[in-house]
């Protein structure tokens, strides 16, 4: 097993689970509360393994999210690509942050993601939703303290490097 390809299946599996959670049917009243599972997973891997998960992975995952959501191809590619690039710029700082600070960073990143998506939806003529679109950023940030230790445990247990 050569350096740098160990445990790819763990990354893919976590992304698959995130994809399932992202399309899990939810009551319509709760739809805005759904956290951005794919973003959470992707940002974790981008911060933990920046040499493996970067812009290209973000574009690939974005393509999948676009097809799953029925959005025009490129919408989530752009938003996730931007967010992962930002995460790649500051992974060294984020790693030493406390959990609360990290959650704050996730709120900002998910907020940027939602903003870009909202902007692109405006271009397509979909009605704006007020500030509701920031709710997923909030729930994503609140879930980070649960998701991060879980993914870190997986990464350490299966020695994904």
């Amino acid at each position, binding site marked *: 097993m050569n350096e740098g390809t160990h445990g790819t299946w763990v990354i893919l599996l976590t992304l698959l689970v995130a994809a399932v959670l992202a399309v899990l*049917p*939810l009551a319509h009243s709760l739809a*805005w509360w759904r956290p951005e599972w794919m973003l959470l997973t992707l940002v974790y891997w981008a911060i933990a393994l920046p040499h493996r998960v970067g812009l290209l992975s973000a*574009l690939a995952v974005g393509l999948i999210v676009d097809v799953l*959501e029925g959005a025009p191809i*490129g919408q989530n590619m*752009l938003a996730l690509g931007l967010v992962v690039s930002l995460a790649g710029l500051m992974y060294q700082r984020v790693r030493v942050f406390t959990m609360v600070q990290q959650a704050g960073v996730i709120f900002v990143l998910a907020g940027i993601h939602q903003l870009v998506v909202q902007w692109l939806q405006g271009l*397509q*003529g979909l009605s704006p939703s007020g500030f509701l679109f920031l709710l997923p950023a909030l729930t994503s940030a609140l879930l980070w303290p649960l998701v991060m230790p879980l993914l870190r445990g997986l990464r350490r247990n299966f020695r994904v490097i």
Partner: protein
Amino acid sequence: MGLGALLVAVLLAADLRYSGLETARSVIDTLLTPVYLIADIPTMISNWQDDNIRSRSRLLDDNDRLRRENLVLQGRTQQLASLQADNTRLRALLNSTALLRDDVLVGEIIGVSPDPVRHQLVLDKGAEVDVYLGQALIDADGLMGQVVEVSSTTSRVLLVTDPTHSVPVQVNRNGVRAVAEGVGSLDELAIHHVAATTDIQQGDLLVTSGLGGRFPFGYPVAVVSEVQRNPGEAFARISARPTAALDRARHVLLVFGGPAAKSPVLERPVEVASE
């Protein structure tokens, strides 16, 4: 990074303006079918429970109720055959096309678009069983939407309430034509550009008019819930409530053979180049 942004911009433009990525999208969608199937497992389990774990008294109640319903429906169908024959004869007199019964295919909803501003469903039927783009989708109570994307095993349906969706309708009572547009809320359609003097009232049933050649004629779409006539405005503000159970249905019907298949399609007038 710059290259990535350029690539994404090109893709977005290609998809939004020229819909040139349909094949790629349908291939990826086919590959992603398992994701929807896995996400559907909890619902499947709860449905299985509903079907298989029931008290005897409830089953007996159900049985009784269904028997009565069946009797009523059968009673009504007795007249259907003669009414249909009548209808065909009268239409023949009027020289218009016969109203045929539409073939339907039962589909099951296996997913809902996770994006709250997009009202889309994923069905478990695809190109393998001849689902086609633009096909109408109904449930027991009315029109739900139309197919906008077909992969080999699944298809994606745009609901009538999506802000990008409009359906040509007519008032069942008097045949007044209008267009019902989605506004992004599951229990509301807006009917724009109806003159303030038009005869349309609260409680009117709106059915598909078949104009536009997309939806078959005569399926209920919505019931008018509110009509506001402001003397200062040229048009009335009308909102309607969709009759179909858009957020509750599980089994739905794909209708084969819209008006496009039956009546001659109106040719779009040749556009005269004005430049």
